[in-house]
C-alpha cells in the first residue's frame, strides 16, 4: 500500500474535519495518476473547482447529459473531443466524484483511457489546454491534507511524501537531462532570451539607437523558428515512445494467408517481452517482441487470430483510420493465390504508411503476379516467406530492423523526450508560442506579444528546473551596452 492509499483509508477515521475556508480554494490540477507505460488502462486525474467544467468542455457521452449534471460517484462511457478541432481524441470511461467525499475533498474527475504514453499524454494535453494546471509532485496529497481530509498526525508524512516525490521526479528529470535534450532546451531558451532582451532594451532604453527596433516581422521570424524547434522536439517524443513502448505493429491480410503463423513465428523466434497483458476491462491483447533490437508491439492480435477481414468488418475509411495509428504494417499475401480485389484494397488503404509486404506460402506453387505486387508495393520492401517451413523469417526481421534504423531514428544518438511531464511542458510551450504568433498576426503591440513569448521561456525553464527571472536582466546588460 502506498502513502496515498493509506491516506485514503484514514479518511474516515479522521477526527478533524475543519471547514474549507474561502482561501482554501485552489486552481484545478491534473496529472497522470497511473504508472507510465505499464498498464492497458491509464488514468488522468483532475481535482479542483473547475474539474467538472473542464471535463465537460472535452467530453461527449452517449447521452446528452453533461458531467456536471450526473450523480456523484458514477462512471460514464464516451469520447474526448478536442474542442478546437472537434476531432475525437480518445475513447474513455470517466468517473465523476464530487467533493467533499473525495480524496482531495475537491471535485475529482478521473479519465480512464488507453494505456501507453502517447494516448495518455494526448488526454493530459487536452486537459491542460482546457484550463487545468499540471500538478506538482505530491500535490493531490497536499490538497487532501490542506482541505482537511487527512489527520493532523499525518502531516509529517505528507511533507515527507512531497519531498520524496519531488526528489524522485528530479532524479528522473536529471537522468533525462543528461546530454542532448538539456542542451537543446538550453539553446532554445537562450535564443528566446536574446529576443526578449532585444524587446526589453527597446522598452527600457527607447533612445538607445544601436539596436534595431524589434518589429513584428523579426519577432515572427524568431517565433516561428522557436515553434518549429518545439514541434521537432515533440515529434521526438513519438520516437521516444517507440523505444519505450515498441513500434505498434499491425498484421493485415485476407483470411488464411498466414497472419497467425507470422505472429507465432515472430513471437516464438524472439522471446516475448510481455504476453497477454491481462485485459482487465478491455479485450485488447498485445504481444511485445524484440526484433533485432527493435521492440515491436503487435496490436489487436486477438482480432487477427480470428482471421477476420478488417476491411470487410469495419469498412475502408474506418480501417484506414485504425491502421494510421500503427507505426508499422505487415501486409501478408498468399503466393499460391492470385491477387484479389481485397488484396489491392489493402494496398490502397495502407498507401503512405510504413508497410512491409510479405508474400507467404512460397512452398506452394506460385499463382501470384509478382510484378503486379511490386507495382502495388511501390518503394516498400517485399519479403518472401514460407512460414510453414520457417523460411524467410530472418529476411523479414532484417527488413524490419533496416526500416527502423534507416529512418530518422538513430537509437544510440538520439534526443528524445519521453517523460510525460516534459511532453506536457513542451506542448504548453508550443501553445504559448502559437498564441504569440497569433497576436503578432493581429498586430498586437510587441510588449504584449512578449507576454506569451516569456511564458514559452518559463515553461521550457521548468523542464530544466530554471526559471529565474534575473537571467533576463543579465542578458540585457551583457547583450547591450547601456547606461548614462
Amino acid at each position, binding site marked *: 500500500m502506498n502513502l496515498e492509499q493509506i491516506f485514503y483509508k484514514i479518511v474516515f477515521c479522521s477526527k478533524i474535519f475543519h471547514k474549507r475556508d474561502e482561501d482554501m480554494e485552489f486552481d484545478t490540477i491534473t496529472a497522470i495518476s497511473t504508472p507510465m507505460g505499464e498498464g492497458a488502462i491509464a488514468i488522468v486525474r483532475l481535482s479542483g473547482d473547475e474539474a467538472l467544467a473542464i471535463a465537460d468542455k472535452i467530453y461527449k457521452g452517449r447521452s446528452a447529459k453533461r458531467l456536471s449534471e450526473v450523480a456523484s460517484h458514477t462512471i460514464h462511457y464516451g469520447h474526448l473531443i478536442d474542442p478546437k478541432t472537434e476531432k475525437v481524441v480518445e475513447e474513455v470511461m470517466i468517473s465523476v466524484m464530487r467533493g467533499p467525499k473525495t480524496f482531495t475533498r475537491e471535485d475529482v474527475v478521473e479519465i480512464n483511457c488507453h494505456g501507453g504514453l502517447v494516448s495518455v499524454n494526448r488526454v493530459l494535453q487536452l486537459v491542460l489546454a482546457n484550463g487545468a494546471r499540471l500538478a506538482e509532485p505530491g500535490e493531490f496529497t497536499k490538497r487532501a491534507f490542506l482541505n482537511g481530509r487527512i489527520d493532523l498526525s499525518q502531516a509529517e508524512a505528507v511533507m515527507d511524501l512531497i519531498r520524496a516525490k519531488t526528489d524522485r521526479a528530479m532524479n528522473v528529470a536529471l537522468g533525462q537531462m543528461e546530454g542532448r535534450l538539456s542542451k537543446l532546451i538550453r539553446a532554445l531558451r537562450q535564443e528566446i532570451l536574446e529576443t526578449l532582451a532585444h524587446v526589453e532594451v527597446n522598452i*527600457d532604453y527607447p*533612445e538607445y539607437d544601436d539596436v534595431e527596433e524589434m518589429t513584428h516581422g523579426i519577432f515572427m521570424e524568431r517565433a516561428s523558428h522557436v515553434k518549429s524547434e518545439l514541434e521537432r522536439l515533440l515529434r521526438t517524443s513519438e520516437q521516444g515512445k517507440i523505444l519505450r513502448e515498441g513500434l505498434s505493429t499491425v498484421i493485415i491480410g485476407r483470411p488464411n494467408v498466414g497472419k497467425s503463423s507470422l505472429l507465432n513465428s515472430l513471437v516464438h523466434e524472439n522471446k516475448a517481452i510481455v504476453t497477454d497483458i491481462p485485459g482487465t476491462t478491455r479485450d485488447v491483447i498485445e504481444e511485445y517482441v524484440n526484433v533485432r533490437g527493435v521492440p515491436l508491439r503487435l496490436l489487436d492480435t486477438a482480432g487477427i487470430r480470428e482471421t477476420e477481414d478488417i476491411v470487410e468488418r469495419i469498412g475502408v475509411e474506418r480501417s484506414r483510420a485504425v491502421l494510421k495509428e500503427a507505426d508499422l504494417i505487415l501486409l501478408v499475401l498468399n503466393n499460391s493465390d492470385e491477387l484479389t480485389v481485397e488484396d489491392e484494397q489493402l494496398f490502397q488503404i495502407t498507401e503512405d504508411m510504413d508497410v512491409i509486404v510479405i508474400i507467404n506460402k512460397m512452398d506452394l506453387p506460385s499463382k501470384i503476379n509478382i510484378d503486379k505486387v511490386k507495382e502495388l508495393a511501390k518503394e516498400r520492401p517485399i519479403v518472401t516467406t514460407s512460414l510453414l517451413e520457417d523460411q524467410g523469417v530472418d529476411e523479414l526481421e532484417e527488413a524490419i530492423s533496416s526500416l527502423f534504423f534507416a529512418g530518422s531514428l538513430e537509437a544510440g544518438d538520439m534526443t528524445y523526450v519521453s517523460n510525460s511531464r516534459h511532453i506536457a511542458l513542451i506542448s504548453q510551450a508550443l501553445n504559448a508560442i502559437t498564441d504569440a504568433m497569433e497576436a503578432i498576426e493581429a498586430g498586437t*503591440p510587441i510588449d504584449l506579444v512578449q507576454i506569451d513569448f516569456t511564458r514559452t521561456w518559463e515553461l521550457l525553464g521548468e523542464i530544466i528546473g530554471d526559471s529565474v527571472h534575473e537571467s533576463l536582466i543579465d542578458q540585457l546588460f551583457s547583450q547591450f551596452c547601456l547606461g548614462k
Partner: protein
Amino acid sequence: MPYEAGTYDVIVVGAGHAGVEAGLAAARLGAKTLMLTINLDMVAFMPCNPSVGGPAKGIVVREIDALGGEMGRNIDKTHIQMRMLNTGKGPAVRALRAQADKFLYQQEMKKTIENEENLDLVQGLVERLIIEDGACKGVITQTGAAYYSKTVVITTGTFLRGEIILGELKYSSGPNNQQPSIKLSEHLEELGFDLVRFKTGTPPRVHSETIDYSKTEIQPGDDVPRAFSYETTKFITDQLPCWLTYTSEVTHQIIDDNLHRSPMYSGMIKGTGPRYCPSIEDKVVRFHDKPRHQIFLEPEGRNTHEVYVQGLSTSLPEDVQKKVLASIPGLENVQMMRAGYAIEYDSVVPTQLWPTLETKKVPNLYTAGQINGTSGYEEAAGQGLMAGINAGLKALEKEELILSRSDAYIGVLIDDLVTKGTNEPYRLLTSRAEYRLLLRHDNADLRLTEKGYEIGMIKEERYSKFLQKKAAIESELERLKSIFIKPTAEVQELIVSKGGSELKDGIRASDLLKRPEMGYEQIQQLVPSDSEIASDVSEQVEIQIKYEGYIEKSLQQVEKLKKMENKKIPENIDYDAINGLASEARQKLKEVRPLSVAQASRISGVNPADTSILLVYLEQGKIARLSQ
C-alpha cells in the same frame, strides 16, 4: 553631552529624494515630523542626471503622486522639457520623462517642505541613534542635539562613509563634495547591521557656450503639454532641447591608452557598480567592437550654462576626461566645469528589512533610498514615500501599508529588495514587473488613489474628483459593451478607410474597438456619447477594451498570487522544526523571514516543494490550534 532638542512622532534623517517624500508623507498623515539634513542648501538635490522619469521610473513617479507624494507635482513645476516615451509601443510601457531644472527643483521642494504643516526642516548631521530596549527612540547629532521620536527613517543616500574617486585621487566625501556621514555608518555596524559597499558615478559637466551644437542633433520635448501629477493644471510650454552626439574612435583610443590610470581597472575601486549605469571606460572595454556610443547633452537648468554629459560617466583622471571630451564631435573646444567621479558608499543589505522598510533588527527604525542598495531618484522617492507612510502610521498606531507586486512598481521594487536582496545598485526595469500590463502609467491613480485616501494622504476634494472619473470610465465601458453597430454604408466606409475589412454583421461597439485598426475616436464618431468624455476617461476605456484579453489573463494570475499572499506566516515560526525543507531553503527562509507564503516562494533557493511543505506545516499549526 547631548542636550534635549525636541520630541517628534517621526524623524527623517536626510533630505534627498527619499528623505523629502518620507518627511512629507509622515507629516501629511498627521505625524509631527522632523527632517534633518547635513546641508539645508542641498534639499532634493540631483547629484547626477538632471532628469526624472523614463520607463518604469516614470510610472513610479505617477504612483507616488497617486499616493499623495510630491515628486510628480514638483517636476511638473520645474522641468525644462517633457517627453512621452515608447508611444509606438503598447500602453503598458509608455512612460513620461522630464528634464529638470535641477536648481528650481530643489527650491520648489524646499519651499513645499517649509510650508508643510507638522514638518520641521533642520540642518544637522546625525551620528547615533537612541536605542532603548533594542528599539529606536530617536537620534543624536554631531552638535549634541538629542531628538526623541516614536520612529526614525534613515535616508542617507551615498553619504555613508562616502569616498569620491577621481583618477589617482581618492578622498572621503559625500556626493558633490558634501560632508560625508561616517559615524552613523559605524554605529549601524555596531548595532549589528550587515553593510555592503556599492559604487556609482557621474559624468563631467561642461559649459554650454563652448559647445558647437551644429555638430549635434537636437532632441526637443513633446509639443503636447504633459504632466506627471494627476493634479497639475498649469503646464510649462517653454521647453529647452537636449542634444545628441557620439563618442569617436579617438575617444576609445584615449580611454584604451589610459586604462592603467583608471581606478576601475587599477583595483582602487572595490565597490560593486551597477551594470545598467556603466562608466564610459567600462563600455569601451566590454563592448570593444562598438564604434561609437551615444552622448546626450542635457542642460542642468534655465539659469545656468552647465550641461550634463549623459553617457560619459567616468572616474578617469581629470586630464584624461578633458581629452575624452575634446574627442567628441561638438565638444572639441568645450570647457569642462566639473569633472566626473565615482563614489563608493555603504548600504544596508536590504533583506534585513520588513516589507514596510522597518529593520528587523531594530524596531521603529526604517531605511529608504540608496542606503537600501538602489539607484535612481525615483526608486529612492518611492521607498521614501512608503517608509515615511509606514513610520508615520506606526507612530500614530495605525495599521501598516504594504503594496504588492500587482499594486505598483513600488511594490515590485520593495518586494525585490527585501525578498531577494541585490548584489549591485538596484534599478527598476519594466521587465522586473510580472504584471506590467496592469502597472501602467495611465492607471496609477486607479490603482492607488483609494489606498492613498484610506490612510489620509489624499484629500477629500481630490478623492471625489477621482471617484467621478472612475464612474465616467465605468459608464462609458458599459455603454460601448451594450451598444450595437450595424453594418451601414457609413460604418463600412469608415472601417475600410482605416484599413480594416468590412463587417459581415452587426457588432458590439466594444468588439469593433478591439480591432487593431480602430481607435476610440472612430467608435465615438460612429456612436457618439451624449455627454462629454474627458480624454483621460476615453484613454482608459480604449485601453481596457482593446487589451481586455491580456488584462484578463494578468488578473487571473494576480488572483492566484493574492491567495498565496493571504497565507500569512507567523513571525515566530521555527524553520528548524519543519522536516523536509531543503537546507538552502531553510537558511534563506530564516534570513528573509517572509510574511506570506507568496513572499516565501519568491526567495531564490526556495523551490515549489519547499513552498508546499511550508504550506502543509502552516496548516498543521492551524489545525493544532483549532483542536486545542
